[in-house]
Structure formats: structure tokens, C-alpha cells
């Protein structure tokens, strides 16, 4: 093995050193009795609980239903946010008519609507999807709007003088110009997506990861509670990786993302 591949391996391993070290310390602390397993079960116990749920197939059911809620909510909220952002970003009339209304609604913390949402939708799927959609709409709306407004007017002027207008101007100049900002919005929205889902599932649900955690709490199964928390973390990380993947593909022209892609 050459020196450079060793160096690359070390670079890849470096980010994992601290989390693995913490896990080891945690395991030791529980094993030595210094930390009660009532407060925090050992990682091995969490792993065992995970294995049990995995073997019974129960965990997949919860993961699927949580993923479904998150995905549908994100698609609806993100789609509406994108559309509204395009409208207000591209047309003076749209901005005049819509922006201040959207900004007003944005200032309402969407989790404060939970009592109302329960009255409207019961503790149904629709309630959770609605909350997730509301949570993801605004970050995407704001960043789409600002992304479009900040597209370099010099480039738009150039493109128009080369005969681009209407949809081709939008597709070739305005959308790619706004894309870095839109993707920032997507990353924020993904964060809000999980946060909202956790709260919604914890308050009222009969399935999903949040339900798994609340149910385990009733029976003092701290290992399952910790497992559920870890599952949320993994899902959040996966969403972030997906967003970064999009950035790497769609923004590969951008020097900042080229450097990042090369460094990893």
C-alpha cells in the first residue's frame, strides 16, 4: 500500500474517531456500574434491542411509516414552497400579492398549530403530513425567492441579448443561478422535516419511530427509547447525505463544491 492511499484512509477514518471513542467510553461507564442502565443503557443493550426489533420485522414497519410521512410531507411542502418562490421571485405582481402574506404565515411557529391540527385532522396520517409540509414549505420558499432575486442581472441581460427569453431563459439562466440557494433551502427543510415529524409522532401516533419511543417509555425500555433517538439521527444524516449528493451533482460547476468533492 502506498503512502497516499494510507493518507486517504486516515482522512476517511478521522471523522469517525471521536464518535467511536465516545461510544466506547459510554459502554465502559455502564459496564463498570458508574452509569445506571435505567438512565442510559449500554450501547450493546441498544444494539440488542435493535436486533430484536429487526428480527421481528417491527422496526421496518415503523421506519417505513415514518419515512412515508416525512417524504410525502416534504414533497408537498417543498413543492408548494418552490412554486411560491418561483412566482414571487419572477413576477413583480406575484411578489406584491403573495410575499407579505407568506411572510406573515411564516412567523407563526408551525408546531404551535398542533392543537388546531388535531382538531382538523384528528390524529390521522393527514395531521402529520400537514405539519411536515408546513415545516418544510418556508425554508424552501425563502431560499428559492432569494436565489432567484440574486441571480446576476448581468447574466440575464447577456442571455437576453443572445435571444433567450421565457422558459429557456428560466431553465438555462435563472434556475441554475438560483439553485445553490434553493439547495440550501432543501437542507434546512430536511432538518425541519425530521424535527416536525418527531414532535408530531411523539404527541399522537399509533405507529412510526416516535410511537416506538413513546411506547417504550411506558414500559421503561430505555434501550428502545435510545434506539429510536438513534434512528432519527441516522435518518437525519441520510437526508443530509442525499442533499449533499444533489449539491455535488447539480453544483459541480461551482468552484466551492468542486473543492469539497475533491477533499473528501
Amino acid at each position, binding site marked *: 500500500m502506498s503512502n497516499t492511499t494510507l493518507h486517504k484512509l486516515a482522512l476517511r477514518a478521522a471523522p469517525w474517531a471521536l464518535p467511536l471513542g465516545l461510544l466506547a467510553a459510554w459502554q465502559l461507564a455502564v459496564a463498570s456500574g458508574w452509569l445506571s442502565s435505567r438512565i442510559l443503557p449500554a450501547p450493546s443493550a441498544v444494539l440488542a434491542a435493535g436486533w430484536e426489533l429487526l428480527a421481528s420485522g417491527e422496526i421496518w414497519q415503523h421506519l417505513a411509516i415514518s419515512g412515508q410521512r416525512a417524504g410525502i410531507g416534504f414533497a408537498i411542502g417543498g413543492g408548494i414552497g418552490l412554486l411560491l418562490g418561483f412566482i414571487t421571485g419572477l*413576477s413583480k405582481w406575484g411578489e406584491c400579492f403573495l410575499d407579505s402574506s407568506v411572510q406573515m404565515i411564516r412567523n407563526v411557529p408551525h408546531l404551535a398549530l398542533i392543537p388546531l391540527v388535531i382538531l382538523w385532522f384528528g390524529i390521522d396520517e393527514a395531521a402529520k403530513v400537514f405539519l411536515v409540509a408546513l415545516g418544510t414549505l418556508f425554508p424552501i420558499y425563502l431560499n428559492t425567492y432569494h436565489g*432567484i*432575486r440574486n441571480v446576476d442581472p*448581468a447574466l440575464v*441581460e447577456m442571455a437576453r441579448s*443572445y*435571444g433567450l427569453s421565457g422558459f429557456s431563459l428560466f431553465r438555462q439562466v435563472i434556475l441554475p443561478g438560483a439553485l445553490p440557494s434553493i439547495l440550501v433551502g432543501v437542507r434546512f427543510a430536511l432538518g425541519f422535516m425530521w424535527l416536525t415529524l418527531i414532535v408530531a409522532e411523539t404527541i399522537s401516533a399509533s405507529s412510526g419511530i416516535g410511537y416506538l419511543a413513546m411506547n417504550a417509555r411506558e414500559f421503561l425500555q430505555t434501550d428502545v427509547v435510545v434506539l429510536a433517538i438513534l434512528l432519527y439521527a441516522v435518518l437525519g444524516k441520510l437526508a443530509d447525505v442525499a442533499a449533499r449528493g444533489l449539491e455535488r451533482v447539480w453544483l459541480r*460547476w461551482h468552484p466551492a463544491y468542486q473543492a469539497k468533492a475533491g477533499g473528501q
Partner: protein
Amino acid sequence: MTALHNIRQGIPPGGVPLAIENIEKSFGERQVLKGIDLHIPAGQFVAVVGRSGCGKSTLLRLLAGLDQPSGGQLLAGNGSLNAVREDIRLMFQDSRLLPWKRVIDNVGLGLSGNWRKQAEEALAAVGLADRANEWPAALSGGQKQRVALARALIHRPRLLLLDEPLGALDALTRIEMQQLIERLWQQHGFTVLLVTHDVAEAVAVADRVILIEDGQIGLDLDVQLVRPRPHGSPLLAALEARVLDRVLAQPELPTPPEPVSPLPTQLRWAL
């Protein structure tokens, strides 16, 4: 170097004859162009010089159709300049390449059909054939301007408008670009209007130097020197001195900001 001749066959090469008749332009209270009359025969290489804020870039923007004149008319031959809009291409001060399109896709901007081969030829004509698949961010300033030149040339313009395209380049790259533009102009025979504040550049490349002072033509000078013109020739130096004397004899204007590209807020009108 004959590559570009094949791009738009069937259309007679050559330039647009230009008639600028009593053109005026005001931005609000401020009158930038105060009645400019200028006749440019087809295929002439004209350099427009002047202090910053004199209105030379405004004139170019009017010719490019980016702004509308407040008075007077712009003619191409006997018809309106708008009728030959497709034959006019503008090169900006900055290259204005789309950073998210590869070099070759920037050259083919606004073209439909199978333009790839033409774009490769246009890039070859500016000496960048091997950079076709790179991102603009990977190019130097001079290379970006050469791509912008290829992007203009692929349309086979009959009037090429150059808005200080060499202003931001280093001295050596500048001379290279001047020679490149001169060579392509000799090949294609388009009319060129080069706006510059570099008087030496103007007399080195142009057939005719127009000095704009305070929105009016202050000097109209024919440069009847054979090409290629050797750098540092005393004849060029004498002409340069003549124009500079005239420029510097004028008291400097209180510098109003040049009217430039639309404000960010105007972008909303883009679609």
C-alpha cells in the same frame, strides 16, 4: 483559421453599414448623449474613446438594443437597426459566461439544432479547442474573454459591438486579444465598434477613432496606417498623442455614475 466561414453558409459575409442620426439619451434629468451623428460604412473598424461617464458605453448599449434612445434614430443601411438585430452581437466588459455551462455550451448559447461542431470550430478560431469541456471557473480572464468572443462569432455577426472587452486583462493578454480580434475582423469583414478608454489600443486596431466628449462627438479621426501595425511605431504614438491632447484639454466632468446593467430589483421583469 477559415473554420468560421463555413458556419452560416449562403449569407453574404461582410458588415452592416451604420447610420446614427441625432441620437439622444437621457436617464431621468441627466442627458447622457446630446445628439450624436455618425455614419459608419460597412466593415469599418471604429474605436470610440472618451473619459468615463462621457456616454460611450451608453451609445453601445443603444446599438445593442439593451436600452432605447430618447431621440433620433439608428439605421442599418436604409432600414431600421432592429431589423438586423440577429446580425448584431455584443461583447461585454466582463465575459459573462454562464458558470453552470461548460465552455462549449456557453459558446452554443441560444442556438438550436446541431451546433456542436460549429461551436468547436468557433473555439478553435480563438485557440481554445482543447478547453471545450471545462467549466468557465477553470479559465483565466483572457481565456474567458476569448470564449465570449467565440460565443459572439458563432452567430456570424455583421456588426460586432465590443464594450471595453479587454479592460480587465493584463497588458500581454490584451495585445494578443487585439491581434485576435483584428485577424477575425479581417477574415469576416464585419463592422466593429470598439468602446475603450485606452487611446493606444484604439489607434492600434481601428480604422477610425471617435472621441466622445460630454455626450457629443469631439473628434473624428481616420487612422490610415497599413496593417499589421508595428507596436511602438512613431506614427501610432503621434496619433495617440493627438487624441490624448484633445481629451486632456477638456476639463474633467464631475463623474456621474455610468448607467449600467439593470438593478437587481428589475430582474423580476425578466420573464
